[in-house]
């Protein structure tokens, strides 16, 4: 069907909600298997297949199987959520085929929860409601109070979900699921009711800053592009996430692709673009598949294409797969790549907002930025401004990895301290060791020692300390690891991924790596450390693009905070 009016969206929403409701006869239970790439990698596909076979063999028609994206706590995958009519949903962790058989026989069939396999009671999307009602929802019977409620687990409670609002709740392959959670309402509002200036003002007022790393105000970017004089304009979603240890964008793309598409529709309306690209790295095959499916569904519903919502507004979006170069996440290199050229950065001036893809004005926004747009349009900029710190509004998604217990994707209000994330959300490190440092912002970021863990996660406070928030990679490092080794790891990555265009980026990174290798092999001397610092400063000042300019950061920050480890390493 073609969506033309707001009533069309509402009728889809109501119909979907009606269809997914559990009852005592037709649909007594629903089993949700969380099938992000992380889940699939740990065996969710086997779980899903054996579940399907079971229902088929036993000719059971009143139990629904649903698949969704990751719910954020990747280290506990595979996860399944079991819902029975009138009872609290239970999330099970580390599920495999044997455990599934037990859960099936005891919980799904008879209603006896297996507490030892359970992670939590309740669903993430109902978390706020549960908190308001003292940890339980009236229509749901408490099944086993020995299991922690989801609101009692810091990992979930301390998060604030805007970007990840739909994770674990919708099937990314179904546009109706997205619409049932107020999807495309904001796009409808923007396209039919608001004009370009109004949208830009709303986004400007919200204080939303680009989540790709630089933190440039999104509204301002749109304003520049909307003023550019051209018939053709482009809107690009930068989904070329390549930092080691960062997977925020993948998580959003895989669990909620339509939120990106909706963000792009609103952005396109604001700047006057009629063509969009989602530049997604080819190493995310599942995300590419899901995006393509979502785009074709949106086209089928008339949400993309000609004359969207019967308002004479045209937009089509296509997925463009990157060929594996990290540097293509840089705006100008990304533009070259879409044009079919070698993905080399160029000088930033003229800005892409004036001269971008095919020499036309282009807006490039990060996945997470775009996912923030529709809640802002729907709830207003004032609502958004309440969340976050003084200078930076809203939330930021971090992918927390390394030596911690809860590895995964977390969305927290900007301004939360590093300590809260590491100790509460991530649940600390394994026993017998402590976290001595945290690497923020991937290879462009820096290493921050434990005595700075009270620092707020915000653009400026981090920059003052010589690290950056970046796109949101956070790697915890325990005291068993060497800081020099960390610097070497990231330098190895940068030297490998340099595009080879400018001299400091091409040769400087290789030489820094050479020196680090020498030090790590125990062959270094004091002069090497001085030479390394000197070279790192020069590369930082002289490199052409953002990648080159920030490549020495891991070295400079470890030299700043862990100089003693370097000195230790070059001692004879």
């Amino acid at each position: 069907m073609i969506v033309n009016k707001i009533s069309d969206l509402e009728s889809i929403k109501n119909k979907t909600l009606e269809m997914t409701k559990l009852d005592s006869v037709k649909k007594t239970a629903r089993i949700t298997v969380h099938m992000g790439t992380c889940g699939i990698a740990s065996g969710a596909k086997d779980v899903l297949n054996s579940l399907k076979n079971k229902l088929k063999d036993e000719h059971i028609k009143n139990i629904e199987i649903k698949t969704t994206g990751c719910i954020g706590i990747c280290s506990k995958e595979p996860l399944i959520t079991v819902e029975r009519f009138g009872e609290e949903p239970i999330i099970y962790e580390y599920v495999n085929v044997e455990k599934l058989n037990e859960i099936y026989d005891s919980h799904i069939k008879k209603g006896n929860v297996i507490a030892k396999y359970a992670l939590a009671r309740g669903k993430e999307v109902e978390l706020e409601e549960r908190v308001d009602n003292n940890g339980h929802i009236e229509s749901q019977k408490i099944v086993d109070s020995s299991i922690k409620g989801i609101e009692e687990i810091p990992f979930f409670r301390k998060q604030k979900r805007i970007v990840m609002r739909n994770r674990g709740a919708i099937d990314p392959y179904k546009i109706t699921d997205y619409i049932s959670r107020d999807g495309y309402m904001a796009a409808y509002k923007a396209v039919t009711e608001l004009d370009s200036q109004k949208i830009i003002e709303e986004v400007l007022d919200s204080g939303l800053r680009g989540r790709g790393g630089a933190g440039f105000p999104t509204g301002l970017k749109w304003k520049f592009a909307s003023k550019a004089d051209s018939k053709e304009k482009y809107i690009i979603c930068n989904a070329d996430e390549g930092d080691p240890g960062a997977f925020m964008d993948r998580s959003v793309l895989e669990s909620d692709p339509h939120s990106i598409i909706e963000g792009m529709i609103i952005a396109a309306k604001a700047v006057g673009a009629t063509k969009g690209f989602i530049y997604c790295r080819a190493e995310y095959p599942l995300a590419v598949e899901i995006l393509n499916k979502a785009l074709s569904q949106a086209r089928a519903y008339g949400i993309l294409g000609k004359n969207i919502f019967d308002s004479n507004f045209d937009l089509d979006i296509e997925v463009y797969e990157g060929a594996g170069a990290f540097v293509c996440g840089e705006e100008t290199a990304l533009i070259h790549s879409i044009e079919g050229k070698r993905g080399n950065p160029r000088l930033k001036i003229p800005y892409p907002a004036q001269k971008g893809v095919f020499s036309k004005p282009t807006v490039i926004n990060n996945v997470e930025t775009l996912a923030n747009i529709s809640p802002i349009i729907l709830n207003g900029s004032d609502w958004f401004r309440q969340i976050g710190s003084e200078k930076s509004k809203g939330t930021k998604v971090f992918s927390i990895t390394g030596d911690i217990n809860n590895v995964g994707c977390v969305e927290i209000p900007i301004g939360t301290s590093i300590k809260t994330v590491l100790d509460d959300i991530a649940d600390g490190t394994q026993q017998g060791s402590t976290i001595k440092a945290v690497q923020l912002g991937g290879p462009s970021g820096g290493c921050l020692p434990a005595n700075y863990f009270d620092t707020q996660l915000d653009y400026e406070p981090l920059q003052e300390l010589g690290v950056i928030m970046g796109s949101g990679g956070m790697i915890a490092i325990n005291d068993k690891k060497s800081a020099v080794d960390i610097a070497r790891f990231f330098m190895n990555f940068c030297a490998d991924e340099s595009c080879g265009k400018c001299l400091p980026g091409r040769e400087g990174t290789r030489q820094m790596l050479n020196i680090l290798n020498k030090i790590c092999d125990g062959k270094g001397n004091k002069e090497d450390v001085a030479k390394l610092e000197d070279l790192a400063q020069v590369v930082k000042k002289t490199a052409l693009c953002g990648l080159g300019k920030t490549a020495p950061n891991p070295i400079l920050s470890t030299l700043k905070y862990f100089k003693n480890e370097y000195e230790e390493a070059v001692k004879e």
Partner: protein
Amino acid sequence: MIISLRDISYEDLKNKLNKDDKIVLWSCNTCIKFCGIGGYDNMVLLENMLRADGYNIIGKELISIACMYSLAEQHKKSIDKKNMFQEATAIICLTCEDGFETAESVFNDKKVIKVVKTIGVGNFTMDRGPILTAPFEWTGLEQNNQGYSFPELAEKLHLYPTFFDRKEAAEDNTDENISLTINNKKCTARIGMTIMQACEANSIKVPHLCYEADLTPDANCRLCLCKVKGEKELVPSCATPVRENMEIITQDDELEHARKILLELALASHEHNCLTCSKGNPCIAGNCELQSLVRDYDIKETRFQQNKEKLPVDTSSPVLVYDPNKCVSCGRCVRACKEVACQNNLSFVNRGSKTCVAAGANKLFNQSACVTCLACVFACPTGAITEKISHFEGDDWLETNVYQS
């Protein structure tokens, strides 16, 4: 090398033009450049002269070999220049007569103006400049071992020994001038100039490797970075336009230190063995820009670990030799192939420190679409792409007495 001399005076040239003509300057980059009549610099000079006299110059085009019909056609049809050529009504040819005839047939609907007279075949010498050794019969000159120098020829054949003189044109329009300070010195520059051009105009030397006047700037060698008041980061002078009252610093301890490190990095990228390199010979395409920068900056050796890995030298082309071991990846050849030759035959392959220039689809030169026009040879600042004929050739360094005071 084809020897041509200027045939018409500046007045004659102006008589052939109308004030409403849309003029394109068309110059070859090979023989005529060494005769002192063609090439980018002369095009700029003539452009400025004609501009000052009120003519409408809509563009200038450098062609690697202007007597090749197919090349001229490709320039005319290239996506970037197509509109300019369609609009043009007059083409001034800074080429030999052969190149003029080619241009005449390519642009058969336009006024094509010849500037030179071609008088035979000759050579370029280091001491006497271009000389004519095999004159055409109509000149009535005898072939001799010494050859004829340009002043001699001009007198005998009633031609001009040099290019047009700037003084023949009207004074520059001062409205287009802006003032700025470079290294705390008051300077003037014209609107539209880059910092690099403004520095050159004011006799201030800014080191560079990847910049060449006739190619679009790429700003990848980072040697020309300078400080501009009000800018947070260093800016590349080759690609930054000047503004009124700009305050520029092109030289201080910090910049010099960074340049030194960058040059050391360039030296460490490969083993640059100057003893066996043809670029050091005093010949027409001699003088290695990397070597002269290294001398300027007093660099005795690189402190960084040198890459000893040898890449195979490509000698497959009949006219040129490509030695990737001497390449500094400045990309001048790549841009020259695209812009001066209109070929797109050269490009970069690989990533990181393994990045290098390759012909065709990463093939040997003779397996690629190379038209052997030498655009890349003239563009290369080091001994990476050299003319085959120049290998183990060239004169000895001239002996001169040096007295100590």
